[in-house]
């Protein structure tokens, strides 16, 4: 019997792994990959709660759909910004692009 706790622990571990990636990575694209992991952990959490506790309205599933939509928009926009920074500075490392104005 798979309990709700199984999914919650999995999503907690996944969120912590994504958090580690965000803190440690230098390249903006690798940080984006880690952010995607964190968002995926959150949607597992939403869907697990919806399936176990909210079978009639399943609001968590609707929320997960929105999370995936916004994640796609975020990746597209962020990669545009990364390309722009790379063209201006010929690096995609966040610790080298530390000023907002130049």
């Amino acid at each position, binding site marked *: 019997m798979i309990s709700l706790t199984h999914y919650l622990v*999995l999503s907690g571990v996944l969120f912590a792994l994504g958090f580690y990636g965000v*803190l440690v990575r230098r390249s903006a694209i*690798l940080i*984006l990959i880690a952010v995607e992991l964190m968002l995926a952990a959150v949607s597992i959490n939403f*869907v*697990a709660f919806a399936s176990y*506790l909210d079978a009639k309205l*399943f609001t968590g599933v609707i929320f997960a759909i929105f999370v995936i939509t916004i994640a*796609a928009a975020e990746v597209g926009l962020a990669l545009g910004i990364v390309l722009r920074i790379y063209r201006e500075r010929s690096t995609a490392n966040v610790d080298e692009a530390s000023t907002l104005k130049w």
Partner: protein
Amino acid sequence: MPLPAQLDRAIVTGSLTAGAIGLPYILVVSVLGIMGRINGAEVVWWLLAGLILVGAIGSVTSNNVVHAALSLVVAAMGIAGMFVLLASEFLALVQVLVYGGGVAILLLFALMMTNASDDPIVVDGSQKPFGFGVALVMGVVLVSAMVGASWNATITTVVSFRDIGTRLYRDYGVPFEVASLVLLVALIGAIAIARRDTEESDAA
């Protein structure tokens, strides 16, 4: 043309590690399933959880940026499997399409246009030990909080496509339209930011 030594060694050590950990794991889960200690759904759950964790660890620790992006795809496919186990097939399909199709291709495009991935680069900052400590503490807090809470709940029904459509368009119509507007704005914004300024380069 021979492979660069760095790439070669990374592939060999990665495959050996995956084999040394993954094969016993799959074996133990399968034997437990055959012995009847855990049922079929649990066997699938543990295999998918292993797949997700392998993909996630690979994507945050790999020194090769392309391997990191492909590991994210592995993790996303495992998560799609989890959505199937959670009785929402629609989300599983969306997950495969958006992550396996869209996000992975976008990331690989951006990697291709920004990094020459052949030469070994330093991908982790000097804050690595500190970041590891913070993330470890956060993971321990999250997991202990989630183990501590007790839920007596079971999965009841499969969420059908028809129900999702009704709920999405009837009850969440306005947020749905706003989300489509956000996608449109993000699309236009990405094009506006990333394109070359032709007038500037002409003037220069």
